[in-house]
């Protein structure tokens, strides 16, 4: 056990955590931020993607112990004063989600793509999202949403 200080969605948090607790479990069970989902046990599905110091990571394979003094942003922290992020709006407009389970990770991943590549082409979007599995949409409308968001950001 150790006391870890970090910031989650702009809020400073200091908590005693066990050495082996995963960031996904910490967010869901200790902070009740259940928007971060866990869809697999092999770090493949990407439903748990959050931003760690601005970069997308799979929170199911990140130890909280490694997040000391870092800044975490989850899907709950993406909207600003109740106004959805351009990416969130774009997913809605293009029907880029159905059951919604992969959506938080998909959106967080897509936001990071546009941080790193402002104007990705279709293949680059598809390649980037290779680590996020969606079983509902067939990805086509997700790709359309990301493209459209890129044009607006």
């Amino acid at each position, binding site marked *: 056990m150790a006391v870890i200080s970090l910031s989650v969605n702009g809020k400073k948090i200091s908590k005693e955590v066990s050495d082996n607790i995963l960031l996904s479990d910490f967010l*869901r069970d200790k902070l009740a*931020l*259940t*928007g*971060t*989902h*866990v*869809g*697999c*046990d*092999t770090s*493949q*599905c990407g*439903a748990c993607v959050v931003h760690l110091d601005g970069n997308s990571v799979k929170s199911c394979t990140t130890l909280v112990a490694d997040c000391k003094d870092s800044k975490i942003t*989850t*899907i*709950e922290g*993406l*909207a600003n004063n109740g106004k*959805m992020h351009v990416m*969130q709006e774009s*997913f*809605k*407009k293009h*029907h880029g*989600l*159905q*059951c*919604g*389970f*992969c*959506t*938080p990770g998909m*959106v967080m991943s897509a936001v990071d793509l546009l941080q790193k590549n402002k104007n990705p082409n*279709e*293949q680059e*979007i*598809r*390649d980037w*999202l*290779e680590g*996020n*599995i*969606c*079983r*509902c*949409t*067939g*990805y*086509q*409308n*997700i*790709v359309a949403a990301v493209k459209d968001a890129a044009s607006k950001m």
Partner: protein
Amino acid sequence: MISLIGSKVERKEDKKFLTGKGRYTADINLVHQTYAYFIRSPHARAKIKSLDISKASKSPGIVKIFTGDDIAREKIGGLIAGWKIVSQDGKDMKVPNHPPLAKDSVNYVGDHVAVVIGESLEEAKNAADLVNISYSMQKAVVNPGEAMQSETIHEGIDNNLCFDFILGDKNKTEESFSSADKIVKLDLRNNRLIPNAMEPRACIGDYNPSSDELTLYTTSQNPHLSRLVLSAFGGIHPEHKFRVVAPDVGGGFGSKIYAYAEDAVTAWASKKIERPIKWVAERSESFLSDCHGRDHITHVELAIKNDGKITGLKVDTIANIGAYASLFSTVTPTYLYAPLILGLYNIPTAFINVKAVFTNTAPVDAYRGAGRPEATYLIERIVHKAANEIGMDQAEFRRKNFVNEFPHQQCLVHNIDSGDYNAHLDKALEVADYKNFKNRKLESTKKGKLRGVGFSTYIEACGIAPSAVVMSIGCGVGLWESAEVRFNATGNVSVFTGSHSHGQGHDTTFAQIVGDRLGVPIESIDIIHGDTDKGPFGMGTYGSRSLAVGGSAIAKACDKIIEKGKKVAAHMLEGKPEDIDFKEGDFILKNSNKKKTIGEIAFACYLPGQYGDAKSPLPPGVEPGLKETSFYDPINFSFPAGTHICEVEVDQNTGETKVVKYTAVDDFGTIINPMIVEGQVHGGIAQGIGQALYENSHYDESGQLTTASYMDYTMPRADNFPQIQVDYTTTPATSNPLGSKGCGEAGAIASPPAVINAVIDAIGTDVSMPATAEKVWKALKKNDLKKTAA
């Protein structure tokens, strides 16, 4: 006013999912909650010699451990197969008891043996390691093709045969083959799949001893049916004191239709310990214990004339239903499969035999399409082969055999009410730019790639289903759907449906129906589902039935609202009910300028008297309130149909196959929300391409599932797909008031044969699903050898 029907309305439910505020079962935590961990069989087939929980029970944080003996002692019923199939000898199908926790024997890897309940999940898992189980291993029956010649899995079920089902006219079919110019034959395997909804299954049992109320939160596609099954057959709790809640559910695709062992055990056990018990599947548990799909071995023969006319069809199928008969496992390879093998074609006679066998694998049940993908795969594969063998164009061979007049009574079961098969074929040829395929092939050849084109013209029967029909063929329930439309006094509307949405967008589509019928803005309409304590009993969502059956129930309830509204309006406007027209939310007295809005009528219905200026006495005999219920039972199935055309490119050096162009033209009848329908088509096609090229569930000889993680089971990813072109033709269904046919499964039904036919066209030789790079490369090498030898 623009009609809401056919409008691309953005989804009402999206914001909560996009902002992380969805509420899935795993997100729910209850006060004083415990955690369940299921001990599962590591063996495919074994006797349980001994099971000792004494050490584990003393482990820190352990509340209780239950075993199969506890379940048996309490006389908790087994999980049931809900559809009785009769074999050709007139005898009922044979199904084994399926206890929620195994008592004496385990029958697949992942079978439930005991549940450990702890103060934390970690403590429950640690204690599970201390449960001492001694197994006596037996030889597992894994291959469905050999199951009938293998050791008996369940005592009293000889040859591991669940049923031996036939459909059609054997003699007439034999005659058609005797007089055929050509007989085309194929042996096919429809690969076993794992549905893989992204949300793993989960449940929480919560018993309140003071009120004797039991609540089960669960990842279910039909909470009402789960409650019925667990109550009536499981004997877990009386229905009126039992509430089942399926909150936001992260995809189902069939795998969440059924009440599973975990539902039964957590619900029952929470009564024993009088505390809530939460269980959330890890993905590996989902792989092992979610119902799998498909898994057919089929021999099919087609009788044709030299001019390309099909004159007869013969099919022999072995369907693997796994270790136990799951809820819809027996109807999936029979009535949802056999009648649909006729495809879109006017085939005068057919004879189908399906033998369903038990094996030591996870139960196999309905997965997106359920029987219809298997049917479509074999008819479209053999039609492709037949057209090639007599040297006809694929499109023209199909066109020659299409049914052209409706209604059409097929030679097996269905009476097809409507369709225009040439229309969607023609449109697909145009959208796919079929006439220029040769040029594209040439371009691919220049890049060193082999290019092929494949067709799939499909039909499905959905909108499941007329109760009288399905019950006459063995279904244990009626398949109607319920709706309650409840006006609130302030003029907004609460709509309760027995359907369940787990990605399909019912909150939006159903609101469009209500908005269109009642003239209320969709912002003022709320769709409520997924809770047995709210709204009437319903039959849930599967078989592309929600719109055709559930949506129709809503439309009917709206019509009753209008009917009552007319009486009230007539009284208020001093006219006769038959002189009231209802249009876009207004009740208008004919030949006058007098009208009342539906909001005013709702208000009047809740304030039936005079209070100050408000004067709204109801007509004599009319009750206060404005709430109507409908239980809608369709008069027939609905029959979506369409043409899908796929083009693939194959890398000759690696065998890697990519879908490079895909066109879907579907006839879903009336479309309410084209954006949502297109999304359903995309998703279905993605799952079908997954089946054709990537996905396969594999058990080794000892019955170990070797594809039990996302590292081993190939889930299709974003970079596996091209842009899919989607278009429609429309012939409204005549079997329901909306004219809708259903769209949820079509993509998964149509696409596998379109893809495989394209691969075969590209490489010039047969290949089985999934057409992995390895398989295609080997097939190409075999071809090369043949050419060299020749």
